[in-house]
């Protein structure tokens, strides 16, 4: 009597393990399907409600019209040029702002007095709504490309500096001691300990920065510009072409998502090649 029941228990246990793996797979499928379903539902609902008149198509446009206009603008209008213009100022601001901010934040390691003096200014400048500086920047740097890049730069530089300074503050002093015990000079401690151990902090500022940089570029274009998706949105608003406003919003969303994923890839690349924290596999 005991033998078959034992066999049965074994079989059950096996099936449980199998079920476990199976369930994880199943759950993943459900999540993916659910996400697609929600997206479809939103767009279908939008389309449907504007068609039956429950949502006023004048304000809301509709997905099909937005896609159609986007396509038209891409094929015949200046949209592709505008996308390139906006992305370029955002990316330039992002890269320069991140690099400069990282250097600034890391520089605080060199002198506690210098860091102490700078810290409150950093905090104030971080709290300052930099977008409000937009009009000044446009007057200073003109309505061209440069003022947008500067605004994107200002949006990212302080955040990165604060992140990098956080990294500097969390450097393990014992690691510095180790280097000094090996007869290292300060710049060697800086390059061999401070920079690599602050790198994860700098990297974690990237995701925030790309969104901030794009916002800077768009607002810069809002204020005054001859090109760019932001300018297109403002222009469409003033001529009451709401469909075109929606196109702008749609394009900027896609741009933002694309940039975000590029940054995630960059982050993965940097982490794999330059960073290895304790406890990570």
């Amino acid at each position, binding site marked *: 009597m005991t033998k078959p029941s034992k066999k049965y228990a074994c079989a059950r246990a096996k099936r449980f393990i199998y079920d476990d793996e199976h369930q994880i797979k199943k759950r993943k499928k459900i999540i993916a399907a659910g996400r697609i379903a929600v997206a479809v539902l939103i767009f279908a609902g939008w389309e449907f409600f504007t068609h039956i008149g429950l949502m006023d198509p004048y304000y809301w446009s509709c997905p099909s019209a937005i896609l159609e206009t986007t396509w038209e603008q891409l094929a015949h209008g200046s949209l592709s040029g505008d996308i390139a213009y906006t992305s370029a100022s955002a990316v330039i601001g992002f890269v320069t702002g991140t690099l400069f901010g990282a250097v600034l934040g890391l520089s605080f390691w060199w002198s506690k007095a210098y860091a102490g003096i700078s810290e409150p200014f950093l905090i104030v400048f971080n709290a300052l709504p930099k977008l409000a500086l937009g009009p000044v920047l446009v007057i200073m740097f003109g309505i061209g490309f440069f003022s947008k890049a500067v605004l994107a730069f200002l949006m990212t530089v302080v955040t990165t500096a604060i992140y990098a300074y956080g990294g500097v503050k969390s450097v393990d002093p*014992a690691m510095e001691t180790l280097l000094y*015990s*090996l007869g290292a000079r300060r710049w060697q401690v800086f390059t061999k300990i401070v920079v*690599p151990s602050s*790198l994860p902090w700098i990297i974690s500022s990237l995701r925030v920065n790309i969104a901030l940089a794009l916002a800077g570029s768009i607002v810069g274009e809002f204020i005054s510009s001859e090109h760019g998706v932001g300018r297109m949105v403002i222009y469409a608003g003033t001529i009451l072409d709401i469909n075109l406003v929606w196109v702008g919003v749609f394009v900027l969303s896609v741009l933002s998502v694309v940039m975000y994923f590029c940054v995630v890839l960059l982050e993965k690349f940097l982490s794999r090649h330059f960073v290895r924290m304790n406890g990570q596999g």
Partner: protein
Amino acid sequence: MIKPYKIKVEGVSKTFTSGGKVFPALDDVNLTVEDGKFVSIIGPSGCGKSTMFNIIAGLTPPTGGDVFADGESIAGRAGYVGYMLQKDMLLPWRNILDNIILGLEVRGVPRKKAVGRALPLIEKYGLKGFEKHYPDELSGGMRQRAALLRTLLYDRDIMLLDEPFGALDAQTRLLMQNWLLEIWRDFGKTILFVTHDIDEAIYLADEIYVFTKRPGKIKAKIEVPIKRPRSAGDMTTPEFAGLKSTLLKLLFSASPDGAETAGGDEID
């Protein structure tokens, strides 16, 4: 100079100020170590052993006294001795090979040359195949090996080891002790070794210095006459037990300032 010495700590004292009060950490410490000797240092927690190492390593200047190595004063001169800190302090973003050559890198030795010197050591001392691994992939014993090889490759005649095996389990610890003795025999370094473990102190050393509790002073110097090469079996001989009981008495005897026993804590 009566005897040729490798390293001499002469009348070293150290005080720290905190909250306007002065705390003596070391008080008139004298020790002389001959070339190629293995010296253990034991004492209660917080007796200033690590402070003394920091002074010998040139990381902290002494308040009084001086440290000599090969006839020269080395107080305040970092990089003259090899120093292995309590924690292995392997840099997590460097693989084992790059960690081991760190000291040579700091000294400006070209990478190719440094690697050329590191690889035979890695092979001989049990880290072969782990060169490209990162510290978080290694066990505690392996990490300590890497840290010790880093100190060894830094190639100084004098090595200071501050409780290097404190965090290891008993069996790994014994393996590491034998491994360290092997390295010491192969390279003829002068080693100063701080430990809390009396067995470890006796098993490894030629001479043992016993510190008092804070402010740290040298209470006694004990010679270890056990013949080399030593093996784990030596730890059960009556001779070993006799030394151990002497040391225990020294460590736990009433200190001059009261009846309190010292040496209770495991960690500094």
